[in-house]
């Protein structure tokens, strides 16, 4: 048994530096001669730019440069791109309006980028930014998701009539209609998936350096995927050829999706540092994060389920209008389409599903992936609808789920919506969760709460999600511009310690530990002798980064494959040294030995031999360093049941989450401590969406929730401690038997919370966020009805 290998809750290697204040986040990096940038942003949601007068700003103390969209266009830089094509119902690709990194003639949301002001200090840049005189002619704005495509609305982009990006019908429409026509019962629900601001705690930042001697740009960015940034900035934005552009994502203070995308500030800083031939640093503040980070969610939907007399689901029909904001962010188009509609089967054997998604433009910040991306929206819709079905059929919510679960023996299970689920035991997770939550004791607890004047409610959510993103062939067919494999390099140094280079990126997930455990387990090298390196295009070969809970399921497998290659090579070297046939060499716990003898050498000795090949097998290359790429054959499908219990104060509408239990199937756990932490964080994110977080614009397009004063983030006293357990299955498609755990909580939690509140109040539905006032009103109405 290997110490610190797979399954051990090893303390994290990265924690030491974070705990002593020696993390290295982008804003912690300073270079000689550095200048500071501040962006001039649009105060209007929709306006024409009649002119920009930079002369006062240029004359201000310390100012080095003021650059606008004209300068950018003159240099042929940009525009920003969206990397995934969705084909609209007219057979045409989605409408893709130009997305200049600095506005050219028009601004389309509050916070849109108009100019960059560069000065010797940040304060000077900010002072000067106020002097840039922009002459706006304000246009009427489109804000509301549900009505953005209505006739008579102002037009945002010429290329997108009626503000529609795409209309995307998917599924067997006729079959679904026939099933609805013959159904015993149809349940229906209108619901909104509230817009969120992703809010990693570290605001975005960029530091660009231009090396004139080498004609090279180095960009330090708050990125979840440095290579994707380099690829896009280079291939599509003409910033610099790939080999002349280095992107570093140092320590990154959380991402949750918001740091996947290629943003205007990043491109402009990279371009500006070459233009002024001095380093340029931009450090966004929280207000800018609210205004100009890509937001998440923002759907308005109608969902219907057709059932037979036993509550079996016959068919589901969904109509969704999704807000993509003012421009298309990097992966925006795929979120309300592929990442959403392909998950509408949920955990159920519903044979027929039809959905129509209309994606619209509005004069709001771009919307893209936020923790879960599409899957939380799908899960919320399905799991709310299932509770409505239960109510309409007079069934217990657990019972209706049980009746419709995909049976355990049906895996791998082909859903009607593309995805083929790898493995699952949904009843097992439900049973375990109900036990963990003491579901059967709920009514007694509810009675007791009543005696204190509180309404207690319980809610289930049985989610499934698709992660381990993604098989390249599958995403290629769908219109993605990239493959989604992952790469790894495992390098022994002559003295026997190991450097592991991964193309994934850790911004809180603890890869430096988990991946080291994988290598430790497979190669038998002590964990302290293993270093995981990520986040720098100059150090790792390539990689697609970290999002979609893909790092272990895809990147981890690439590492394991590289280790396999080392073992195979090591056998050759050991066979030569031990004077045995290669076929007789066994590798166990870090030792190569000759089967049936006590002749052995450990892997460090093999590595040394490979670098000092004085006596070496013929035809074998020196060196002990292997590369591998892994392209998954399928997504992975974590699933589970979450149960939330709430107490509502009917006098004020305040909801307290009193108990939260989650049982998940993530396949095999490499580091249970880290996995549990991911689940906690995800649940908090999901509870935040359900109870607190509602991003809101006024009718003029001003962001009302532009700071923590108005955007309610979950805090310690909003949450209970969580009860976590697992009901693992073994996914046959993943060589490591792992599934992915980073987003599950954010996917499972929102419907569990809202189901619990609906249960407590005895109402059919309440939209998120279920603020005290909304809950109080719903309680008032429920009381009036029952009176």
């Amino acid at each position, binding site marked *: 048994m290997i110490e610190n290998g797979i399954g051990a809750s090893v303390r994290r290697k990265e924690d*030491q530096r974070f705990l002593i204040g020696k993390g290295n986040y982008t804003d912690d990096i300073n270079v000689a001669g550095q200048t500071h940038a501040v962006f001039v942003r649009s105060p209007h949601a929709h306006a024409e730019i009649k002119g920009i007068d930079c002369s006062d700003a240029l004359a201000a103390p310390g100012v080095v440069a003021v650059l606008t969209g004209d300068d950018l266009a003159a240099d042929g830089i940009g525009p920003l791109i969206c990397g995934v094509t969705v084909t609209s119902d007219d057979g045409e690709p989605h409408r893709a309006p130009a997305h200049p990194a600095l506005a050219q003639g028009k601004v389309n949301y509050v916070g849109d980028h108009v100019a960059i002001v560069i000065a010797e200090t940040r304060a000077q840049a900010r002072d000067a930014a106020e002097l840039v005189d922009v002459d706006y002619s304000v246009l009427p704005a489109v804000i509301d998701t549900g009505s953005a495509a209505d006739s008579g609305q102002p037009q945002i982009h010429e290329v997108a009539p009626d503000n529609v990006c795409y209309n995307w019908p998917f599924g067997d429409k006729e079959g679904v209609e026939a099933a609805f026509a013959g159904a015993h019962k149809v349940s229906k629900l209108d619901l909104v998936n509230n817009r969120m601001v992703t809010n990693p*705690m570290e*605001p975005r930042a960029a530091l660009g350096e231009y090396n004139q001697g080498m004609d090279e740009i180095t960009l330090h960015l708050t990125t979840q995927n440095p290579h994707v940034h380099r690829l896009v900035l280079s291939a599509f934005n003409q910033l610099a050829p790939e080999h002349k552009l280095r992107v570093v994502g140092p*320590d990154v*203070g959380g991402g949750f999706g918001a740091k996947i995308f290629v943003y205007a500030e990043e491109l402009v800083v990279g371009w500006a540092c070459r233009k002024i031939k001095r380093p340029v640093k931009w450090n966004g503040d*929280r207000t800018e994060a609210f205004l100009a980070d890509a937001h998440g969610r923002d759907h308005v939907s109608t969902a219907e389920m057709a059932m037979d007399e036993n509550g079996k689901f016959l068919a589901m029909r969904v109509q969704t209008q999704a807000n993509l904001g003012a421009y298309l962010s990097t992966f925006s188009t795929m979120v309300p389409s592929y990442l959403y509609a392909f998950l509408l089967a949920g955990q159920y054997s519903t044979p027929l599903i039809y959905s129509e998604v209309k994606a619209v433009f509005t004069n709001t910040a771009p919307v893209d992936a936020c923790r879960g991306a599409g899957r939380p929206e799908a899960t919320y819709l399905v799991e709310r609808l299932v509770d409505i079905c239960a109510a309409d059929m007079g069934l217990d919510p657990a019972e209706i789920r049980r009746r419709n679960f995909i049976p355990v023996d049906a895996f791998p299970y082909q859903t009607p919506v593309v995805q083929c689920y790898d493995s699952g035991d949904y009843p097992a997770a439900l049973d375990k969760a109900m036990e963990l939550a003491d579901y059967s004791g709920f009514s007694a607890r509810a009675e007791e709460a009543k005696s204190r004047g509180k309404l207690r409610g319980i809610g289930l959510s049985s989610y499934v999600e698709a992660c381990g993103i993604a098989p390249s062939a599958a995403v290629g067919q769908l219109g993605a511009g990239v493959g989604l494999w992952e790469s790894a390099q495992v390098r022994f140094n002559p003295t026997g310690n190991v450097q592991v280079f991964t193309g994934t990126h850790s911004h809180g997930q603890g890869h430096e530990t988990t991946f080291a455990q994988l290598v430790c387990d497979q190669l038998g090298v002590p964990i302290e002798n293993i270093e995981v390196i990520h986040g720098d295009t100059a150090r790792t070969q390539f990689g697609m980064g970290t999002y979609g809970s893909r790092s272990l399921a895809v990147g981890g497998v690439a590492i394991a494959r590289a280790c396999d290659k080392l073992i195979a090579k090591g056998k050759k070297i050991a066979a030569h040294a031990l004077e045995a046939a290669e076929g007789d060499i066994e590798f166990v716990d870090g030792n190569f030995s000759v089967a049936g003898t006590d002749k052995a050498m450990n892997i460090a000795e093999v590595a040394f031999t490979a670098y000092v090949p004085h006596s070496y097998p013929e035809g074998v290359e020196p060196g002990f360093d292997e590369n591998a790429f892994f392209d998954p054959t399928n997504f992975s499908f974590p699933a589970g049941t979450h149960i939330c219990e709430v107490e509502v104060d009917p006098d004020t509408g305040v909801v307290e989450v009193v108990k939260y239990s989650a049982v998940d199937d993530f396949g095999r756990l490499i580091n249970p401590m880290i996995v549990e932490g991911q689940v*906690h*964080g995800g649940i908090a994110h999901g509870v935040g969406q359900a109870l607190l977080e509602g991003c809101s614009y006024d009718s003029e397009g001003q962001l009302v929730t532009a700071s*923590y004063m108005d955007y309610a983030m979950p805090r310690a006293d909003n949450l209970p401690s969580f009860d976590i357990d697992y009901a693992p299955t073994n996914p046959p498609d993943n060589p490591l038997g792992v599934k992915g755990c980073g987003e599950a909580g954010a996917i499972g939690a929102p419907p569990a919370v809202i189901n619990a509140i609906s249960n407590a109040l005895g109402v059919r539905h309440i939209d998120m966020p279920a603020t005290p006032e909304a809950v109080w009103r719903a309680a008032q109405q429920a009381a009036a009805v029952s009176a």
Partner: protein
Amino acid sequence: MSTVSMTVNGKAVCGEVESRTLLVQFLRENLGLTGTHVGCDTSQCGACVIHVNGKSVKSCTMLAIQADGADVTTIEGLADEAGLHPMQQAFMDNHGLQCGFCTPGMVMSALDIVNRNGNELDESTVRKELEGNICRCTGYHNIVKAVQAGAKAMGGS
């Protein structure tokens, strides 16, 4: 510009600042102590919490000039040759951090909680006392455990 001097993590330091220079800027930019972070502009997130004369303050909401002559402790001032401070160790042992961005402020606030409430902390006290520290990663579960464990360890039990 004016000159400020103070004691930071036991060392006498001084520097030139504008009146408007925030204490956090002085620490990060003048002294290179980048462990103290800035996560918001409304004095709410707590990533910048340090101790001034033994009390927790938000260093984004205090001028460097106002700390003239003060005794300042930052996250960099806790560990010594012997290793991590018990509160830092508790954060590591209980997985009370993920991305690490909120962590310095969390740890400094945790120490202030212990200073005022002692070594035996119940969960609801810790949750209430952490009102001024926002974490997006951990869901607080393990932070709360870490603060409780760290408090105990500081008591020597």
